[in-house]
């Protein structure tokens, strides 16, 4: 490095540690004294650039950071909360959708309801339990052999349901009389609950056909469904016990709802 190169470097990088720069300074007295002057000037520049720093700058930055950090954590918790709310909302929507599905009356049940609107059973006709043989006979006429007959059938009649053959019964239950219609040779795809004109209904596949129940309340549907499933099971020996366990108030008097629900035929 010569003097010119040294001075150029000195003017741009006085604190340079380049070996050639340091070596030249060692061997050139004039450049060494120029370096001393440059160092003095550098000290002034450093002093001028070193403006006062605001008090507690670092503390303020750390405070801002910890505040932001806490805020983020709070937000992430809120985010979790939002996810929970979203999941709950999804479940609610699913439940609503499911309940809506339940209110759709299947076609077969529609035929049964249409028949029941024409064939109204009076309370007088369904006041007392009928002999089980009558029920057995009605089913036999429709080509269905029952293993047994559930208790508490107060009315039975062989009726049509649209193009299908059916057995129409009335079973007085705690929640009021239940119209029970067994549609022969027309099994539904799955069990389905529905509502129609303020009435509750259920269509359920049993044996080779479908059992359709219609009442002002669906509180007894499970027990009736169970008893008729037992009645259809071939070779079941425990049917009566099971039916008794589910049946309640077989002997109680018919509710006036029978008349209200199924107005007398003209």
């Amino acid at each position, binding site marked *: 490095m010569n003097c010119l190169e040294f001075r150029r470097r000195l003017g*741009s990088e006085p604190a340079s540690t380049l070996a050639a720069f340091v070596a030249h300074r060692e061997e050139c007295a004039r450049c060494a004294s120029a370096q001393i002057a440059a160092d003095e000037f550098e000290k*002034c520049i450093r002093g001028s*650039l070193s*403006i006062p720093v605001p008090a507690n700058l670092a503390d*303020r930055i750390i405070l801002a*950071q910890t505040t932001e950090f806490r805020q983020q954590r709070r937000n992430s918790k809120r985010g979790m909360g939002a996810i929970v709310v979203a999941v709950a909302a999804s479940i609610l929507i699913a439940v609503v959708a499911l309940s809506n599905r339940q209110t759709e009356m299947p076609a077969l049940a529609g035929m049964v309801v249409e028949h029941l609107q024409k064939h109204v059973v009076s309370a007088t006709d369904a006041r007392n339990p009928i002999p089980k043989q009558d029920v057995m006979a009605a089913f036999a006429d429709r080509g269905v052999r029952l293993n047994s007959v559930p208790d508490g059938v107060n009315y039975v009649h062989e009726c049509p349901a649209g193009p299908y053959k059916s057995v129409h019964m009335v079973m007085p239950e705690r929640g009021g009389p239940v119209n029970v219609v067994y549609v022969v040779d027309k099994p539904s795809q799955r069990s389905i609950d529905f509502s129609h004109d303020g009435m509750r209904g259920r269509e359920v596949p049993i044996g080779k056909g479908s059992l359709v129940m219609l009442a002002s309340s669906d509180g007894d549907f499970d027990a009736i469904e169970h008893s008729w499933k037992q009645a259809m099971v071939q070779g079941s020996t425990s049917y009566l016990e099971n039916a008794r366990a589910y049946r309640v108030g077989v002997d109680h008097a018919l509710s006036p709802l029978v008349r209200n629900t199924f107005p007398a035929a003209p």
Partner: protein
Amino acid sequence: MKPVSASMSSRQHQFEALVRGHSTDLYRYAYWLCGQDALAKDLVQDTFLRAWRALDKLREVGAVKAWLITILRREHARLFERKAMSSDDIDDFDLPDPQATPERRTEESVLRQAIANLDPKYREPLVLQVLGGFTCAEIAEQLGLGEAAVMTQLFRARQKLKGQLGSESQNAEVSEL
């Protein structure tokens, strides 16, 4: 609310060490970049907050200052983009009151004004070199310039400062007469 120190993680320790070690230099760099105390404080704070979020990306402890400077320069650029300002628009530096400094620092005050008057393209590499301690090569990398260009800018920056100081001292001599 728990005190911060009670649940202080190693990450938090690292961050605090970073702040305490570099906030002073960063503030001064920010100040000479934007010329305003309040803006410089905001810039430094935003820089450290961004650094906190990206702390896991920091691999080399030796490169931390350059990393912070890079973040600060980006923050500064964003700030000026948002405000649709140019750094050349800074005419008046919010310089510390010279009267508030000791008498022996009068020359420093004059020099400070001279630095404020420098074109940003000369001032910025000078600040990076003197305050940041970066080499010409490192400054060139920071500013996206060639090393030779940086050397030239630094050389000219010093020449201009010397020139301004010379005229100031001449003015002072004239006024004394």
